[in-house]
């Protein structure tokens, strides 16, 4: 039976008791995981997976949908209130969410994030359902050459968009790329790189260690060493820490005042979500970059801009619908979370593949409707815990810093049970703190780590598909467009840098003649 014709079945499932309970449980569980910095959604999925084996597969899908849909929402709370992303996909939320919180607008920021998340998720799910036939040929246009240009464009554009001198931003991004190269890697057969004979470094540096160290623990050191920096004690507005309900609900509607930003970022997030192997970590940066480039108030980005927060959040939630597309249509996971869902299908005896949508429409609708409703639950959960979280600034900063360090240490141990990972998190945290002192962007290092790794792997894969011929990088119309866009951004950055340097050049002193 046609997939769309099964919508009534899907709705009937949704309003049954067991799926609703599964959805609520999954949402609460995923939300809590997102709330704790360092705990990633894949870990949450890995823990819950065995418990779903004896469930009805439809109920299990609702549990997964709840977990995936609510996880990012939980992660945006510490990103906004403490400047610490709860998950890797909430890093860009810090750019503007945290400054808003620092001037006493944490509740408003949480409301904006909630409203944006609902809009972004709804957009992508509707697009997924209505435009599957159109999306498939579009998706097939994105191969490794095209992805290489997407990552390169993202790296250059983000370097330009990061605050501070461009050279410092470039240094940060480059540092991230070098860190990503540590461990096994290379074009075909992996070889050790930058390991200096260390068996620990052979394992490479896990992304969780980078996020936890550079973004979480470094900020904790700020609280610890500076005994300040806590948000929401705004002298200017006289606003006390704590939940302001009116501001929260007003914030929920604010994204409607920026329809262009919401739509652009949702489109980008949906598209990025459809490309296997890319995911939310990339979507947020590309979307933020797009928002910066198209905004009429770009000078406010990074300083508590509403539009900046919207562009970061919309893409993260829009990617959820996008990632379902390759999963349903090709049986190829759109990201790590979908890989778990596919593993679950296999365990249930279901074969993922191109015919899955029609053969198992009930499961597909469970995921789609579950993701949508999960965002509603996540908003309720945000309301429930935000009242507590926004009071955290009342606690002394050094206690906050200590708690964050301890939680990060424990969360890091959960990943690989390796005590050296914890040591590395503390060392990178200290290093990140030093970078902050030097006004070098730690976010830039994370961007370089994430995008640089993908850029390199897609570069090699593309070259291999082209038998080593570099013309593969301009062999399709999509890759040509992306290549031109990248070159233009590089040119714009160079021109801007030259203009800045010429403005700073000292006036030439004209020699005066002794003869007048």
């Amino acid at each position, binding site marked *: 039976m046609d997939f769309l014709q099964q919508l009534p079945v899907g709705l009937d499932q949704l309003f049954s008791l067991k799926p609703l309970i599964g959805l609520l449980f999954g949402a609460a569980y995923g939300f809590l995981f997102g709330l704790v910095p360092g705990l990633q959604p894949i870990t949450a999925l*890995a823990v819950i997976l*065995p418990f779903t084996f004896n469930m009805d597969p439809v109920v299990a899908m609702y549990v997964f949908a709840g977990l995936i849909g609510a996880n990012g929402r939980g992660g945006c709370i510490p990103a906004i209130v403490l*400047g610490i992303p709860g998950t890797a996909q909430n890093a860009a939320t*810090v750019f503007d969410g*945290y*400054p808003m919180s620092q001037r006493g607008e944490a509740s408003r920021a949480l409301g904006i994030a909630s409203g944006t998340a609902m809009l972004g998720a709804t957009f992508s799910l509707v697009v997924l359902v209505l435009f599957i036939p159109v999306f498939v040929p579009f998706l*097939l246009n994105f*191969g*490794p050459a095209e992805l290489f240009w997407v990552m390169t464009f993202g790296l250059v554009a983000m370097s330009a968009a990061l605050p501070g001198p461009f050279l410092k931003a470039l240094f940060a991004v480059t540092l991230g790329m070098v860190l990503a190269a540590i461990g*096994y890697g290379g*074009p*075909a*057969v*992996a070889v*050790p790189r930058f390991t200096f004979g260390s*068996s620990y470094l052979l394992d490479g540096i896990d992304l969780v260690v980078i996020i936890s160290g550079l973004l979480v623990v470094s900020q904790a050191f*700020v609280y*610890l*060493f*500076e*005994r*300040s920096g806590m948000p929401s004690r705004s002298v200017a507005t006289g606003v006390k820490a704590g939940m302001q309900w009116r501001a929260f609900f007003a914030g929920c509607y604010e994204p409607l005042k920026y329809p262009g930003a919401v739509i652009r970022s949702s489109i980008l997030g949906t598209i990025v979500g459809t490309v*296997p*192997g890319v995911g939310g970590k990339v979507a947020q940066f590309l979307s933020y970059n797009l928002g910066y480039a198209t905004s009429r108030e770009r000078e406010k980005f990074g300083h508590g801009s509403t539009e900046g927060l919207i562009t970061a959040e919309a893409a993260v939630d829009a990617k959820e619908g996008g990632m379902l597309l*390759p999963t349903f249509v*090709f*049986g*190829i*996971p759109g990201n*790590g979370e979908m*890989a*778990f869902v*596919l*593993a679950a299908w*296999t*365990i*249930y*005896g279901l*074969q*993922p593949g*191109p*015919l*899955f949508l029609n053969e198992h429409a009930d499961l597909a609708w469970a995921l789609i409707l579950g993701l949508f409703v999960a965002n509603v639950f996540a908003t309720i959960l945000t309301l429930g815990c935000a009242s507590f979280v926004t009071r955290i600034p009342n606690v002394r900063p050094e206690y906050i810093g*200590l708690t964050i*360090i*301890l939680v990060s*240490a*424990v969360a890091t141990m959960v990943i690989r*049970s390796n*005590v050296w990972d*914890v040591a590395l998190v503390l060392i990178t945290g200290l290093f990140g703190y030093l970078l*902050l*002192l030097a*006004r070098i962007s730690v*976010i830039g290092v994370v961007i370089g780590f994430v995008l640089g790794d993908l850029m390199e*792997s897609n570069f090699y*894969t593309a070259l*291999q598909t082209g*038998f*080593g011929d570099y013309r593969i990088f301009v062999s399709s119309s999509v890759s040509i467009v992306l290549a031109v866009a990248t070159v233009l951004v590089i040119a714009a950055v160079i021109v801007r840098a030259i203009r800045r340097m010429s403005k700073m050049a000292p006036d030439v002193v004209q020699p005066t003649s002794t003869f007048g």
Partner: protein
Amino acid sequence: MTTLQDHRWTPTIQGCSAALLFALAAIWSPTAAFAQFPNGPVRWILPEPTGGNFDALARGIAPVLAKNLKVPVVVQNIPGPEGVNQVYRAKPDGQTIGMLDPMGELAREIVMKPDFNVHEMTWLGRINAGTNLVVASKKSGITSFDELKGRKTPVRIGIFGLSSPFVQLIMLSSAAKFPIVPVNYRTIGELIFGHVRGDTDLSSLGVNAWLKHIEAGNAVPILMVGAERDARSPNTPSLNDVGLGQYGIFTIHRAVSAPPGVPADVRDKLVAAFRATMTDPTTIAFLERAKFESNSLWGSDFDPIAKGLGAALPEHADVLKQAVTQ
């Protein structure tokens, strides 16, 4: 973004030291040298990407294994040599095991001499031996294995690192004399996507991974990499059918290993737990439902297989090195 221009420098060294000590104490549990096995959760490392057959298999049987070991079994994906390295260097107390692809790791040893030595691992047995299916992409125009024999133009093969499918394709290319160009992907999902797009000409994965794509017309089955035909794709020729039956030894084994030096009594407990797991009705039902092969071998039953692979693969060392370093 945090900047520090407005903050004064007031270090809290005592608090920081206390936090660090507390953090380390919270996570560093002293290990008893001769604790009874198992004395805590068993960590099962998969040096394979999430979402593949290794992953689904391990996660499917982990709950039953946990029941037989009477401790939780935590499955972790650490793809690539990093994962193998972690298994190799773990404490030989039975608390860490790995699910490895011995042919892939033996090939890695031949080609690049990694820091770990798979011959030293404690091999417990195999969960199953799978049959891989070589498929051609629709865009390649290849419709049979015979078309590849003696072909002059290179064939792009999709791989995800040095693994059994890669080794099998190298052997086949050497035997049938067609040149290959490896196209490396990070995950199985990306490999399949690349194949559907036509970025690769041939790829090899477990049969289950391709069935729906074959049905949808995105992949053309070329060869079953096993001595006999497989009921899941009965019209696809086997190695015997194309005169390459001697390569049947190079099948993919989903084997379980532990670090070198695991005491014999711990090894025996693990083997016993796995035997009980694979004969458990829950596991049998799961294997049937998920269409996995059911041919596990443990302990001394698996030793000849491991020895056979260890002896046969080095004979093709030159072919492996050439294919990898081109």
